[in-house]
């Protein structure tokens, strides 16, 4: 078990007219190897929750155990925050706004430097991190981050976090504001990071069609509480409740519902677009006596082909 959260409560601006109870008794265990998606509408408490996990917000009530580090409201002994933050890396929304150094190298090196590592170790980690996010180290290390494209800047910002080799990587809306190809690149980067760097990944997303493509477990925040915590495929048994909470459900489920309402028989367990396509093919084969092979359905419905794209071009558009 990586992270155990017990009875966590949090109130902003306590004892003032603006008092807001952001978290009301949150209990959650995050296991090593989880690819966890967190959904919930704005103000549901999900950002407040993740900021607790690496000590950006102090625990008011309840307790959190991150690996062997205990976070409570007891002031002494102080938890080892440096160690905590080397274990849990946090990539905020629009992380490229937080790039501040003159060169890509310096920016990525900032974290490892603050961990007190040797120069040699810092060098190695910076090089490794820049290459892990898919940028050529020699080519980019001396560039100013501000000359890069939006997607590249975001990758540099992520490199700065993974250079600390966190065991748990948390990303808040990692694809927001990117164009479709930038989104695909970041999504495949996250999958790659899970394999090669941080075995436990937590992603906050508003895009349910996107998050169902990779998360294996989904946690829904609503009104400061964990409303649902289910394996990805199971969550949508509660689709009625999700809609009532003002949350979106995957397009594939909506289409399946409408088809079923018109009397068409489809199998169960439709969540992603490839699930839907599989069931449509099966139903089609049955009705028309054809034998279209379901294994021919591509996993990612739209396969992006980046072989022709010129990623070296530097534009200043934003």
């Amino acid at each position, binding site marked *: 078990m990586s992270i155990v959260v017990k009875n966590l409560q949090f109130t902003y601006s306590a004892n003032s007219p*603006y008092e807001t109870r952001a978290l009301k008794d949150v209990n959650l265990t995050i296991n090593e190897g989880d690819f966890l998606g967190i959904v919930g*509408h*704005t*103000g549901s408490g999900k950002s407040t929750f993740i900021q607790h996990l690496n000590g950006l917000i102090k625990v008011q009530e309840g307790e959190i155990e991150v690996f062997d580090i205990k976070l409570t409201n007891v002031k002494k002994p102080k938890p080892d925050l440096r160690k905590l933050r080397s274990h849990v890396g946090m990539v905020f*929304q*629009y992380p490229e706004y937080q790039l501040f150094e003159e060169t890509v190298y310096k920016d990525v090196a900032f974290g490892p430097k603050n961990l007190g590592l040797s120069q040699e170790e810092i060098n190695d980690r910076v090089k490794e991190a820049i290459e892990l996010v898919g940028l050529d180290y020699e080519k980019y290390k001396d560039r100013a981050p501000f*000359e890069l*494209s*939006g*997607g590249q800047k975001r990758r540099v910002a992520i490199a700065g976090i993974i250079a600390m080799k966190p065991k748990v990587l948390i990303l808040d809306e990692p694809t*927001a*504001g*990117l*164009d*479709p*190809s*930038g989104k695909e690149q970041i999504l495949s980067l996250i999958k790659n990071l899970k394999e090669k760097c941080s075995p436990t990944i937590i992603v906050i997303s*508003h*895009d349910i*069609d996107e998050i169902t493509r990779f998360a294996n477990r989904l946690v829904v925040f609503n009104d400061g509480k964990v409303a649902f915590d289910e394996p990805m495929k199971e969550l949508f048994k509660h689709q009625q409740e999700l809609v009532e909470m*003002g949350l*979106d459900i995957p*397009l*594939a489920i*909506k*289409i399946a519902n*409408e*088809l079923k309402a*018109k009397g*068409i028989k489809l199998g169960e367990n439709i969540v992603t*677009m490839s699930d*839907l*396509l599989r069931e*449509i*093919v099966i*139903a*089609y084969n049955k*009705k*028309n006596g*054809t034998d*279209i092979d379901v294994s*021919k*359905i*591509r996993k990612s*419905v*739209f396969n*992006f*082909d980046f072989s*022709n*794209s010129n990623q070296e*071009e*530097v*534009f*200043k*558009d*934003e």
Partner: protein
Amino acid sequence: MSAIELKNVSFSYVLSETEIVRAVRNVSLEIEEGSFVAIVGHNGSGKSTLAKLLNGLLIPDKGTVNVFGIDTKEKSTIYEVRKNVGMVFQNPDNQMVASIIEDDIAFGPENLGVKREEIIERVDWALSQVGMLEYKKGTPFKLSGGQKQRLAIAGIIAMKPKVLVLDESTAMLDPQGRAEVMRVAHELNKKEGMTVICITHYMEEALEADRLIVMSDGKVVLDNIPKLVFAQSKELLDYKLTVPLATQAAIELENLGISVGKDVMNKEELVERLCPLL
């Protein structure tokens, strides 16, 4: 009549002596008054630069931009241009100037020298257009992202522009906030006849426009009604874009030999085409 006319417009950013970025390259366009136009393009395609050329925030290096017949190059009439073309940007937190909502909305018309009585009227009108009249006396800082962006729109329309430019105004919002902002934009277009130019990364938003312009590498590469643009899915991929998810599903079904047509744009159409086949 065209609201905005671009003739052979080019614009470059000079980064250093050796590095010049040609952000907009020889673009010619006419935006019809009263139309709802979406502009899509990959990051760095030049669409935000194009937006800033529309109200004289940037002046073209080559070519001309005419706004209701006024050349944006003319310094003496630049305020006339800005009054006609209002812009709403991406970040909801960067566009508020006052701590009380009605003051925030009044800021624009005040600066245009509008009379007090009329400002009061315009503030109420603008807030009711975006469905936020009851928040008039409140503070903007406690609102959701979608509400803040609707306020930003109210602040702009209080200046009574003829053209509203939304430069990725929904990018930082949750799905609900996005829907609110798009609903307001479409209402302004339909009820008030306002010309709307919406720059976006969301193909589903682009689908709702009358006309869809695709930019790539500083040039306009596709320009048609959305349905016909999305029918060119191969080209869109080359321009690092995509098509709406329902269209992706339809294309995949076509590839497998189930003919639903590649021109399916949304879930209703997909369901309609599938029903007789299953």
